[in-house]
């Protein structure tokens, strides 16, 4: 069954506010990936984290991998309407199991 938990399930923010989604695994992950799915679209790869404690940035997006490699987070600074969508973390080696996703909506 699903072993990658993601919270919150939904998040509504005002444009310009920050947003964070968290991913937790019951077991150590060799790596974790993050995807974004726009409304009506398909998931698109954002980034992969491999090393313990790793932090990567993509413009306003900051991705972190926990020291124990059991949790990860995605933080968006100063959200824009283009950030709307559902953000998924994914892990579990060959199976590529996804978290439940966090659906971000933004009030312009």
């Amino acid at each position: 069954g699903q072993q990658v938990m993601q919270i919150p399930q939904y998040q509504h923010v005002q444009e310009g506010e920050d947003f964070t989604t968290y991913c937790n695994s019951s077991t150590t992950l060799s790596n974790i990936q993050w995807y974004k799915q726009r409304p009506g679209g398909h998931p698109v790869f954002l980034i992969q984290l491999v090393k313990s404690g790793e932090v990567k940035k993509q413009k306003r997006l900051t991705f972190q991998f926990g020291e124990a490699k059991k949790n990860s987070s995605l933080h968006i600074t100063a959200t824009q309407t283009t950030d709307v969508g559902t953000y998924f973390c994914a892990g579990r080696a060959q199976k590529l199991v996804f978290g439940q996703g966090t659906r971000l909506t933004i009030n312009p």
Partner: protein
Amino acid sequence: SQTIHQWPATLVQPVGSPLSLECTVEGTSNPNLYWYRQAAGRGLQLLFYSVGIGQISSEVPQNLSASRPQDRQFILSSKKLLLSDSGFYLCAWRAGTSTTEAFFGQGTRLTVV
């Protein structure tokens, strides 16, 4: 370059009818292939994955089945659809390691009526 094709884009089927969704990948060999289902506003549920021809791992017991008759072809089937089979079906592929990104097809929106 690699591409993934999934069809049809939308499908309306009556309860009890059969289903066949096809996914093909071009430009790569021996990919890992995946079928996911997404209920409206929900997460991605892994249904099947395959690491090679004829090798299918089922994640959720249900009335769906998958087959991989060729290296780059992945088929999702059902003999008799249920109302609960409605959803957004996504096919994905990635290179045969656990450290590569997955690429998704455009998805099939299935409505069982």
